[in-house]
C-alpha cells in the first residue's frame, strides 16, 4: 500500500528527511514517532502528493506520488497537522464541498455518514468557526474519511482532544485500520504503543528504529528489569541483593524501592525473594518493569547523538 524508497527532501540547504525507506501493508496501522522537526510532516506531505521529494520514490496505493499524483490523491485521506477548515462554512457545506471535489456520487448521504462516524451529528449545521478545537479536529477527520480512502494519513490526529474524545478517535482509527492502511504521526508515545502495529521512530530525518511496540521494548531493555519494595531500609536490603548471583544495576531508593536487572533467560526472582525474606525483610511488592516507549525513544535518540 505504501512503499517508500530512499525518500529525501531538502529545504534549501537543510535536509528535512534523509533517505527514508519503509513499507506498509493493507490493514496495518503504522506510527510515525519523533520529536518536532524530525521530518514527520514533511514525509506525510510527500506521501499525499502535496510536495514532491528531492530524491527517492514513494508509491502510495499503487501509484507514484510524483508521476501519478492525481491517482494518489484520489485514494488517500489526509488530515494535516493544522486542520484545514473554512471557518465561515458550516460543517455540512464544508464536507459537501470536499465530497464534490472528490466527485462522490452520493455526496450528501456520505457527508451524513462521516459526520455520524466522528460524532458531530448535532453540530452539522454549525459554522466551523464556532466549534471547539476538538470538534474541528473531528471535522478534519471526517473530511479525510469522506471518500473511503485506501490509505489514511493522519498528522497528530488526537492533538487538542479531551480524554474522552481521544479514546473515541483512537477506536475509530483502530476500526479503520482493520481494512485500510493508516499512517499516523504522534509524539505521544503511549498512543503509538496502544494503536500501532508497527512504530517507526524518526529523528533528524532518519529512521532510527522500526518494529512492533512490544519488540522495541524487548530489544532495548537488554534483559529484564524488576522493581521490588521492602519494608525497612532499602539501602541495606540492596546489600543482600548484591550477593545474589546475576543481579545487576541495582538501585536503591529511600522509600523502600529497589530496582535491579538480570540477564535474559536467567530468572533470579526466586533467589532474590528468598534471600530478602531470610534476612528478615518483608517483601511487599515485586513486579517486572517495562521500559516505556519514552525511555526507548530517549535511548535511541541519545545513541544517535553520541554516534
Amino acid at each position, binding site marked *: 500500500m505504501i512503499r517508500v524508497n530512499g525518500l529525501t527532501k531538502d529545504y534549501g540547504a537543510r535536509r528535512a528527511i534523509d533517505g527514508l525507506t519503509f513499507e506498509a501493508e493493507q490493514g496495518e496501522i503504522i506510527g510515525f514517532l519523533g520529536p518536532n522537526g524530525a521530518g514527520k510532516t514533511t514525509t506525510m506531505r510527500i506521501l499525499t502528493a502535496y510536495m514532491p521529494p528531492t530524491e527517492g520514490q514513494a508509491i502510495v496505493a499503487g501509484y507514484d506520488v510524483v508521476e501519478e499524483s492525481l491517482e494518489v490523491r484520489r485514494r488517500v485521506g489526509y488530515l494535516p497537522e493544522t486542520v484545514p477548515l473554512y471557518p465561515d462554512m458550516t460543517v455540512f457545506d464544508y464536507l459537501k*464541498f470536499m465530497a464534490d471535489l*472528490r466527485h462522490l456520487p452520493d455526496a450528501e448521504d456520505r457527508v451524513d455518514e462521516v459526520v455520524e462516524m466522528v460524532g458531530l451529528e448535532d453540530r452539522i449545521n454549525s459554522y466551523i468557526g464556532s466549534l471547539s478545537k476538538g470538534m474541528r479536529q473531528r471535522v478534519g477527520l471526517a473530511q479525510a474519511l469522506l471518500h473511503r480512502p485506501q490509505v489514511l494519513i493522519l498528522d497528530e490526529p488526537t492533538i487538542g482532544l479531551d480524554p474522552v474524545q481521544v479514546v473515541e478517535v483512537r477506536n475509530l482509527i483502530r476500526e479503520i485500520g482493520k481494512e485500510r492502511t493508516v499512517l499516523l504521526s504522534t509524539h505521544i508515545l503511549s498512543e503509538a504503543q496502544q494503536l500501532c502495529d508497527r512504530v517507526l521512530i524518526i529523528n533528524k530525518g532518519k529512521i532510527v528504529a522500526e518494529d512492533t511496540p512490544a519488540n522495541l521494548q524487548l530489544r532495548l531493555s537488554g534483559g529484564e528489569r524488576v522493581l521490588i519494595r521492602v519494608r525497612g531500609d532499602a539501602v541495606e536490603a540492596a546489600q543482600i541483593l548484591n550477593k545474589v548471583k546475576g543481579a545487576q544495576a541495582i538501585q536503591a531508593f529511600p522509600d523502600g524501592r529497589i530496582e535491579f536487572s538480570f540477564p535474559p533467560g536467567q530468572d533470579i526472582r526466586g533467589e532474590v525473594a528468598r534471600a530478602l525474606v531470610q534476612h528478615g525483610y518483608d517483601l511487599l511488592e515485586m513486579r517486572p518493569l517495562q521500559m516505556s516507549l519514552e525511555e526507548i525513544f530517549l535511548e535511541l535518540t541519545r545513541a544517535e547523538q553520541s554516534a
Partner: protein
Amino acid sequence: MRNIWTIAKREYFHYFATPIAYVVAFLLLLVVGIIFVLNIQYYSQNAMFGGGAPSPNIVTGPFVFLLILSVPALTMRLISDENRMGTLELLLTAPVTDWELVIGKWLGAFLFLLTVLALTLIYPLLLNFLVEPGIDKMLALSAYLGVILVAAALLALGTGISALFSNPIAAFFVTLAVFVLLWWLIGAPANVLNSGGELFSYLDMSAHFYDSLNQGVIKLTDVVYYLSLTLLGLFIGATAIEVRRWQ
C-alpha cells in the same frame, strides 16, 4: 471542468457572506449611479443648445475606472488566504489540478462581478426610455463586452498575484500597483518616444477599452489583448502554486 465549477461556486457564494464584497458592490453601483444622474442633468440642460444625447458609455466608462480600485479588493484573499489558513494543503491534496484551482477561483470572482455588472443594466435601460429614438444598441453591447473583457483580465491578474502571497493586504497593494501601471503609466512613454512607442501604446490597458470597445468598435486586437492578459494572470497563479509545492 467539474472541479472548476465546484470551486467557482464556493467562491461565488462566499462573496455574499463577506462584507468586503457588499462594500465593493455598493460603491460600484452608488458611484456609477451618481455619475449617471449627473450626466442626465448635464445633457438635459444642454439639450436645447444641441448638446446631443448621452450614450450608454456614461455607465461603462466609470464602471471600468472603478474596477481598477475594486478588483484588488475582490481578488486579494482568493489564494493568499488559502495559503495563510493552511487550506491550500487541503485543496492540493485533493484530486484537483493547480489550473483547475486557479481557474475556479477566478471564475467565482468573475461571476460575482458579472452579477454586479448585471445590476447596472438598469441604467442603459432607463436611458433607452429617456432619449429619442432610444440608445445605440450596438454601442451598448460593445461597451458591455469591453467591461466584461477588462474585468476578466483584471480579475485573472489579481488572482495570479494573490497566489504569490500569504497576506491579503500585500496582495491588494501589489495588485493595485500593477493595475495603475498597466492602466495609466505604461502608455505614457508612447507620447515621448519618437520610435518604439507602438509597443507601449499596445500594452496600455485603458486605450484598448476607451478608444474602441467603449465607443462601439469591436476589434480583434483588443479582444486578443484582454484574453491574453487573462491567460497570463491565470498562468501566474498556476505557476505560483506549482513553485510553492517545490519549496
